[in-house]
């Protein structure tokens, strides 16, 4: 991605420890980056830019209540045919202050409890 493309990318994430970032159009690519990065450093990675529709999905609620992760998946399900990319969920959850590592851990817990399933790898639906 050229510098100019980077300025207009929908998603960006960074590791503050290493002072490096990644720009992408695909939120799951950011999750892949997180996995590779954390595998050799143990560092967590945070979203620094997310798509505006995701911001709406977690903040524009009539009752202004805080959504749980499962609510976020339900909220986004209509937009995606075969499951919500976990990167989109992580991006949305970053609005609530969660790092990518923290979101993936939560997703794992909820899946083990039977609240979420993966219709395809790294894509989520709520039960």
């Amino acid at each position, binding site marked *: *991605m*050229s510098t100019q493309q980077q300025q207009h990318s929908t998603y960006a994430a960074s*590791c503050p*420890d*290493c*002072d*490096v970032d*990644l720009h992408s159009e695909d939120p799951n690519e950011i999750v892949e*980056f997180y996995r*590779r*990065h*954390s*595998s*050799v*450093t*143990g*560092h967590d990675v945070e979203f620094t830019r997310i798509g505006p529709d995701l911001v709406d999905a977690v903040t524009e609620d009539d009752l202004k209540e805080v959504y749980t992760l499962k609510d976020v998946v339900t909220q986004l399900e209509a937009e995606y045919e075969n499951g919500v990319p976990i990167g989109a969920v992580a991006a949305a959850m970053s609005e609530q202050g969660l790092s990518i590592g923290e979101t993936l851990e939560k997703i794992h817990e909820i899946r083990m409890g039977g609240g979420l399933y993966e219709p395809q790898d790294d894509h989520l639906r709520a039960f």
Partner: protein
Amino acid sequence: MTQWDDSQAAAVSENVTDESSTSSANQLADPDPFETEKETVFGRDWIYAGHANSIAEPGQFFTRTVGDRQLIVVRGHDGESKAFDNVCAHRGSKMVEDTPMTDPGGGNRIQCPYHLWTYDLDGELRSTPKSFEDASLNPDLENEDVQEFDCETNGLNDVHIDSVGPLLFVNLSDDPPALSEQVGPMADRLESLSLEAADHERRVVEEVECNWKTVAGSLLDAVDRQDRLPGVESAETDLETDDHCWSLSSTDDDGRAQIHYCWPNVTIEVDGDDGYATCIIDPVDAGRCQLIVDYYARDGDGTEAEREFVRTSRQRRAEAIELAERRRDADGASTLERTLGPNEHTVHDLHGLAQESNS
């Protein structure tokens, strides 16, 4: 091994444009050069794995992925470093989680979480759960439910490991040549510096959207420009090659400041007495690589000289990455010759050797 001299440099430089273009054309023809290199380079050559100081105590280990294989590098009870595939001999499951050298794991045994087969630090199977042993006495169990095992043959798959000072290298092939054949005189030069006396300070990892060889070529140029290190007046650069591997070393007059590019994917920069850095260039796929940089310092953190070294090293790498990105972009537009840096022969040599390895 042959010593590189200027006459060879000139000979290669004259037709570097043609040969480099051919080499990049061939790479385009290979649908996924990294898939091929997993065998011809990463499956065959010595690869830098990590630092022995990070696993100083018996049982301490880290994981390192080479090509498609993840290894466990562990300190044995006998004080020796060992390497095994991170694959259980029972049903091939991954046993330990990803464990970076900077945050090593530890324990007296390696235990697979799935059915609790347990191995000692030599990779020998030591125990399996009681229930499996009991299982053979249970008449209700089908034969295939009963695990037949033999502690003698059910060990972990071990991988060759050797070192230059505290720097640990692994080799995935069954019968590798000696590490010294691959690293050449770099070994003596580094071993004279007691690298084990310095402590790990910091790991920085970044990704570059370029083929790993493009980044390697640009970092090679940086080795040739060692005179830009602070305090280095003049430096001598040697390229050691044989038909497959090579190393490029630049050493200042008193041998304290050194930069080495060691085939296939690690650089080692030593800044006199203050510290050193290693940089691994690991392919992620054909179009992306991960640079894993580790800084070591002799006097704990914080001297101005150390900070200056980290700054210079980072700066040099940033320039190399920029150059790699320019080369990548130019490659696409078939204008490779215009963007080759000042040391075409080294770049040519890297492409050429990787090409030979692939064929």
